[in-house]
């Protein structure tokens, strides 16, 4: 048993670190580190930089433009990126749809879509959840009816992140209403510019608008955009959701947030002393750091197991539960640290280029909205209740 990274891995970490230092634009880093609003172009500028370096798709096979990194190298890359405040690559193309096309798509789909995912010519979003189908995803009702060389799609998707600026959406649609619910679903790629698609933003309680409803009204989709076989979409979706687990612990991002929390708690005053010296607050920060240490090693143990070729199993639900809990607690403590100054609502202060005098310290505006917004992390990607079901059923046989 050996915790230390190999010399090669350490050299790789250095390489990643200096690449980020030399190439990450300062304005993007500022937005990421200070919780300011990130636009499509901010994400894509960094995406293109990574693409030029050949680093944009670590999870793809090398022949399609992947990096050929080991699971440990991928972890190092994610860790360094998060800590430095480099934006994550928008996951819907690279992490989610790309691997499905690589595994199940036909040659035309591979040639047409994969290079455009890598270059960010196509930005993707995910059409899975529907108003009546959340945890019970397989009950989805958006339907696609074959009509000659096309499918006609009708229905509604919801909670669709990035739909407001995406070029394409990968959609789960019902193609056989008579079959058992998992068996009548297909995986369809749809150009967001197709007539009949309407995107309506959903404002969340923190005032943000990063999710949307997407309506399909007689949308005509070429049949060649069907991935794999008709009615086999549920298999592809399960494959995709299995891939989504990588990086789900968010250890790197949480380490960065913890560092910022400590800075806030050192700046804030309580009875004339730094808040970090208040034993109650100090204990909470310390206890959370212990949890994060444990999660980091749990994450590494799972990554090490994957190095032997094993895919991520139901154990990744542990990472989701703990990872989301820690992320939420960090936002909770940052908000608590501000005391009354968590109250002013300064949405405009989160926009880039805002240069009025902030109300309270400059890190105040983001704290409460961040806390409210992060209630989502125990809901999305399979709620933590569903994750506990997975552990009970798949790991424990209960």
């Amino acid at each position, binding site marked *: 048993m050996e915790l230390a990274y190999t010399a090669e891995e350490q050299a790789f970490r250095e390489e990643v670190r200096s690449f980020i230092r030399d190439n990450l634009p300062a304005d993007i880093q500022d937005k990421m580190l200070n919780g300011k609003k990130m636009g499509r172009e901010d994400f894509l500028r960094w995406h293109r930089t990574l693409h030029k370096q050949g680093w944009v798709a670590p999870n793809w096979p090398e022949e399609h433009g992947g990096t050929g990194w080991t699971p440990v190298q991928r972890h190092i890359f994610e860790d360094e990126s998060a800590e430095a405040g480099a934006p994550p690559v928008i996951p819907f193309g690279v992490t989610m749809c790309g691997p499905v096309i690589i595994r199940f798509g036909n040659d035309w789909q591979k040639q047409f879509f994969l290079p455009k995912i890598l270059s960010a010519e196509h930005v993707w979003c995910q059409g899975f*959840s529907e108003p*009546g*189908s*959340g*945890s*019970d995803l397989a*009950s989805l009702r958006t339907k696609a009816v074959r009509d000659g060389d096309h499918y006609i799609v009708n229905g509604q998707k*919801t*909670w669709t992140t990035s739909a407001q600026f995406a070029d394409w959406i990968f959609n789960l649609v019902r193609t056989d209403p008579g079959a058992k619910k998992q068996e009548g679903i297909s995986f369809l790629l749809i150009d967001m510019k197709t007539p009949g698609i309407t995107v309506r933003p*959903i*404002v*969340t*309680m923190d*005032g943000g608008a990063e999710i949307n409803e997407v309506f399909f009204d007689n949308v005509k989709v070429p049949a060649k955009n069907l991935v794999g076989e008709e009615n086999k979409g549920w298999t592809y979706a399960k494959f995709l959701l299995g891939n989504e687990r990588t990086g789900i612990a968010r250890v790197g991002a949480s380490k960065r947030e913890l560092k910022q929390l400590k800075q806030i708690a050192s700046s*804030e*005053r*309580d*009875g*004339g002393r730094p*808040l970090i010296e*208040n034993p*109650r*607050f100090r204990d909470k920060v310390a206890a959370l750091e212990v949890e994060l240490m444990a999660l980091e090693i749990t994450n590494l143990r799972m990554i090490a197991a994957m190095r032997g070729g094993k895919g991520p199993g139901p154990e990744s639900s542990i990472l989701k539960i703990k990872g989301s809990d820690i992320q939420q607690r960090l936002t909770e403590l940052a*908000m*608590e640290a*501000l*005391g*009354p*100054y*968590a*109250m*002013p*609502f*300064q949405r405009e202060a989160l926009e880039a280029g805002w240069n009025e005098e902030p*109300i*309270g310290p400059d890190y105040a505006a983001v704290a*409460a*909205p961040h*806390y*409210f917004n992060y*209630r*989502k992390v*125990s*809901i*999305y990607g399979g*709620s*933590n*209740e569903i994750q*506990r079901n997975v552990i009970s059923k798949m790991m424990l046989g209960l």
Partner: protein
Amino acid sequence: MDFDFTEEQRLLDETVRRLVKDEYDIAKRKSYMAAPDGFSRKLWDRYAELGLLGLPFAESEGGFGGSAVEIMIVMESFGRGLVVEPYLASIVLGGGLVSLAGSAAQKQAILPQVAAGKLLLAFAHGERQSRYALADVETTATKDGSGWMLSGHKGVVLNGDSADQLIVSARSAGGSRERNGIGLFLVDAKAKGVGVRGYPTVDGLRAAEVTLDGVRVGGDAVLGVADGAYPVIEHAVDRALAALAAEAVGIMETLNAATLDYLKTRKQFGVPIGSFQALQHRMADMVVEHEQSKSMAVLAALSADLADAAERRRVISAAKVQIGRSGRFVGQQSIQLHGGIGMTDEYLAGHYFKRLTMIDQSFGDADHHLDRFAEVTLSAG
């Protein structure tokens, strides 16, 4: 032992419940928030007509001689509807300070106006560095002939942007964080040297940063003693905490009702999600937390004016600890059990959750009050 309302209290409860039910929902609340003051002047007049604004003041002061129990009744319903009018700022805190510390002349000049809805007050007390410590006052009051000159910065002054008169705490003697040496001063919001920067708060209310740049007030602007206001401040804030506890209880009741309804109606896997035991137990825990909070809100109301100040402090802080912890659990779990819909601005849960969250960070969070409680209960000897 009797936890029942008197006949008058029952009528008050009915009146306020009906008023809030008729005049408040999420859409109406948004329209009130969009008004220049961030609340409805029309509703404020209605509250005045119904006698709510004079409720806690003595009859001789133009009020109805109500106790903290009456305030609890009002605030619980205000919590149910997520009311945005400045009842806490102007009546409980502002009016409370005048009624606790003011001279007969000051009370006569101010309280009937407040009760009639013609005059709005705000308590300008907290400062950037003070966090929750009530004695941490750096704003200065220096003698200026027969009057005073005030200088300093007051932060997150609840409804400070619509107030006609500010009640400003300032230090006339003593070092920072000393309890002695703090005075309360009536300041016209339009007086020379007063700067008010108003803004919305994350929970849909309004607050302001107030700057005092050599503001001159007369000797008659002092509420009570110019260097001995700390006990009055603490008492008024304790009353506000009891009111906040009641508001939080009303919020929890509404969140629990909405969550229960969702568990019964939302179907996944062909059944209502309320048929899943994991969610049933969570909902049961939320009900337990609401009941515990309600108990502490009642206890706080019955203790808000105790002659024994140490016992008052002990009970009020205990209530705030309970409210803070239960509120966090109920709020977070309500959003969690709703799933995606709970995250949206369109649905009610998020609004209640945000207010409940900020109640914890008003006048001391659960940690702060656990310390204050322990100081009274656990001091050696």
